[in-house]
């Protein structure tokens, strides 16, 4: 090992002599991903007791799901949900991105702050808030409308695929914003100016030049959002599970955690999971193709062109109304209602009467042992996962950027894999692995470390891309100068590489920490008694019907989240936030 680290040519000339330490670090997370996928496939072809001689290899699981009318219903729900999600996200995110990048609208820093906040505030907040707003039974908006117009039933139902899609869309609008804003920024404004000079009108330019040029970027954003939407768990779980409206991800959940006396159907889960892997893989390869074809439109220009900004004048007010409405509907109103719910003994539409009943009763009655256990587990994850992600991602990035071996392309591709795999899939894969492969030999089931492993591999893709970008900008000769002038590899890392990479490392750390802190999907699938996380505590209260208690825990969680978000934002202003 010492040999491997100290021998510089081994470090550099990967082709000649691999450095086992570095290679090991790079390949470990990729190996885990491949194992998770393999286990899922393996389980999907079995009936009986998996991994024992009594297991039968069969296609029965696939036959069962293909002949299950309920699953077709679920697929239909998922399609409607995903379509709604994509429309809402794009119709909100795209105009705001256009306003921020291509017009003279004032307060652009604030727009970016609002949208970054949108990325960081968990989707479950919006989902919980919208339950209080528009649930057919308790939603205050429904109650008000029923009272006001003397209706017989609630006019709005948020617990439908369209309703959930709306909430998910609000939550993903920030993603749509980030993706399309990048596209607008990269667009060469001289192409529009050329159209202007040659006499085309504003509308014609928008229609004939801007839109066609933006099309690949928009399509890429659409595919990206569809990929998330198809497999997302938290919002369909919060809004749909209690009302028996199922998506693919929540369908998998009830197969693993059946209500009543049913037994978990792991084989079915494996088969559905395999189906989702195929869908995700197809979507991701399509995404890659669209991105590549988008480069076709990239016209080589000199450095630093300034985009021509469209003068908005009084229309800026309309723009800000739109942004304000988005912020209010997606973040502010849900947060207000969560706060309200946390402080009232039961949920009823806000009224003077209810205001008199405000109290901290839910905080007194909270199962503090549970909450603290959740907080402790989450703290462990936040401390461990981002550091491991940085370590693995650095090893991968270094090999991808600095090595000249052809194997680096394979490595780069593998590091991108987790991007294609939904968290539900990784979670199910890890669950099956712990239950049927590792079993009692490595007792990971029910351990926080199982969750940690999934978190690490799930975040590798993002971290690797961010680090690749930074490492590419650090000339390799800066490292070589240190080697030649006698600095050991470790000292070179500490004295040269680390100080230069510091901003990126810190922002990747913060971003990963935030995502780990708020993550619900993996935590719910893998969490049992001892390894419950902070967000999973909210979920367990909510799922058991304790909406007000869940809101109280949410407030607690936000109290911790807020300073982290402020830190992220404050830091993000000083360095480029990776997206």
């Amino acid at each position, binding site marked *: 090992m010492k040999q491997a680290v100290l021998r510089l040519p081994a470090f*550099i000339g990967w082709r000649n002599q691999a450095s086992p330490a570095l290679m090991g670090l790079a390949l470990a997370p990729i190996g885990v991903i491949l194992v998770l996928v393999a286990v899922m496939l393996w389980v999907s072809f079995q009936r009986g007791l998996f991994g024992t001689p009594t297991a039968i290899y069969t296609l029965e699981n696939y036959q069962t799901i293909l002949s299950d009318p309920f699953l077709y219903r679920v697929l239909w729900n998922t399609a409607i949900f995903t379509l709604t999600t994509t429309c809402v996200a794009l119709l909100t995110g795209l105009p705001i991105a256009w306003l921020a990048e291509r017009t003279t609208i004032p307060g652009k820093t604030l727009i970016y702050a609002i949208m970054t906040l949108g990325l960081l505030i968990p989707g479950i907040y919006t989902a919980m808030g919208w339950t209080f707003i528009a649930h057919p039974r308790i939603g205050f908006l429904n109650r008000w409308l029923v009272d006001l117009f003397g209706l017989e039933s609630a006019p709005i139902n948020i617990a439908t695929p369209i309703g959930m899609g709306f909430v998910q869309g609000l939550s993903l609008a920030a993603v749509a914003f980030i993706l399309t804003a990048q596209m607008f920024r990269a667009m060469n404004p001289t192409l529009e100016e050329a159209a202007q000079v040659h006499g085309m009108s504003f509308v014609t330019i928008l229609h004939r030049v801007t839109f066609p040029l933006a099309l690949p970027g928009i399509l890429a954003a659409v595919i990206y959002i569809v990929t998330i939407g198809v497999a997302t768990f938290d919002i369909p779980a919060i809004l749909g599970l209690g009302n028996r409206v199922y998506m693919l991800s929540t369908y998998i959940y009830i197969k693993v955690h059946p209500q009543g006396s049913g037994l978990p159907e792991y084989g079915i889960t494996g088969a559905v999971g395999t189906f989702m892997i195929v869908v995700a893989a197809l979507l991701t390869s399509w995404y890659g193709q669209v991105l590549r074809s988008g480069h076709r439109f990239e016209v080589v220009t000199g450095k630093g062109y300034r985009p021509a900004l469209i003068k908005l004048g009084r229309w800026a007010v309309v723009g800000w109304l739109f942004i304000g409405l988005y912020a209010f509907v997606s973040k502010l109103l849900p947060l207000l209602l969560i706060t309200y719910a946390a402080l009232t003994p039961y949920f009823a539409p806000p009224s003077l009467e209810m205001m008199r009943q405000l109290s901290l009763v839910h905080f007194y009655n909270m199962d503090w042992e549970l909450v603290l256990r959740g907080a402790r587990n989450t703290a462990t994850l936040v401390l461990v996962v981002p550091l491991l992600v940085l370590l693995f991602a650095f090893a991968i990035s270094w090999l991808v950027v600095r090595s000249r071996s052809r194997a680096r392309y394979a490595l780069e591709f593998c590091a991108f894999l987790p991007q294609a795999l939904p968290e539900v899939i990784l979670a199910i894969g890890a669950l099956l692995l712990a239950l049927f492969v590792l079993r009692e030999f490595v007792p990971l089931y029910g351990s926080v470390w199982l969750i940690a492993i999934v978190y690490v591999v799930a975040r590798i893709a993002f971290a690797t891309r961010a680090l690749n970008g930074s490492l590419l900008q650090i000339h390799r*000769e800066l490292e*070589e*100068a240190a080697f030649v002038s*006698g600095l050991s590899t470790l000292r070179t890392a500490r004295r040269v590489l680390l*100080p230069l990479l510091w901003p990126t490392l810190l922002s990747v750390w913060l971003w990963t920490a935030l995502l780990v802190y708020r993550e619900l999907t993996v935590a719910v699938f893998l969490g049992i008694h001892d390894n419950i996380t902070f967000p999973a505590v909210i979920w367990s209260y909510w799922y058991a019907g304790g909406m007000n208690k869940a809101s109280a825990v949410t407030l607690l969680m936000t109290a911790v989240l807020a300073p982290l978000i402020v830190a992220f934002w404050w830091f993000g202003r000083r360095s480029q936030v990776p997206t």
Partner: protein
Amino acid sequence: MISIQGLSKEFAVSGGNVAAIKGLDLEVAEGEFFVIVGASGSGKTTLLRCVAGLELPDKGTIRIAGQVVSSDNPPTSVPSQQRRLGMVFQSYAVWPHLTVYENVALPLAEGAQRVPRREVASRAREALRLVQLEEVADRSATLLSGGQQQRVALARAIAVNPRILLMDEPLSNLDARLREEVRGKIRELAKQLGATVLYVTHDQVEAMAMADRIALMQAGEFLQVGSPTELYRDPARVEVAEFFGLMNWLKGRVVQPGLAETPIGPLRFKGAAAPAGEVLLGFRPECVAILESASHAESNSFPAALRSSMFLGDQLVYHAAVGEQLFAGKCRTVAACSGGRLQLYIDPDDVMLFSAGKRVDQETAAARPSAAVRAAG
């Protein structure tokens, strides 16, 4: 000081392996300023990086001061850190997060040959004094101009008292005027320190101005190794002749020792070589003399028509046609080649004879006294 035997290195590229270096041998004496020159992709930087320990050669042995630092048999590779080198990189590789002083002091304080703490400051200051950067020692390295950054890199390289100073196109990022100034200073400094220098460049003028000896590299091989005057006046191959300056070429056939038949008539050359078949006769533009119109009778003298001329201040470059053949020439005064008709003279001493790309009228390189004098100095 540096001894290389049978060095080979291949790189993997899409569609197979490409040999960057093909079985090179090289000896560099202590205190010698040795320049490797060649076009981009000729393998010169790879060679330098093999010496530095930044690339692992596939075959061959490299010795520094008698010590094997790299070999394929038995497999040996002394890490860069322990080779005790100084290196100036093309990008300078000045660490941007440190000050000028810290850039120079870091290898001293934390490098493999740990310098006692109290000596670090004095040695770093001394190195900065040598490159005249004392007064900006505490400034951030990135705030300096390109020329100053280049000197920081140089100071860092010499501060560690290296056994060899390696330089990888250190001047290519400087503007032309500064480049000329700095190359003199680097050579001066190297000689003052008695350093053994291995210097890589693509610029033949830079190579000739700085080197004790030059190796011209092409496609991973040395075409010729020798002193600047040798390579310029006695190129062993057509490529070498063309690399170091303009050449006039004539196709011809040797009819008797010292005389070739060419399209412009018989041309005398020195030496007794008489290869069969077609030969190439070459001479440099500055070897073309313009005769007073009176002396027509001499051999190697040809009437020519002036086609174009360019006045460059210190010289005048012209093109003149002898029959169908166009020649480049250089002279000092405008008057000498004004008027449309010229009588050109080519000294037989200056005519080089090549056959199949190789020199055939070769005098031995050692016979040139000038080369020996420069190498010794």
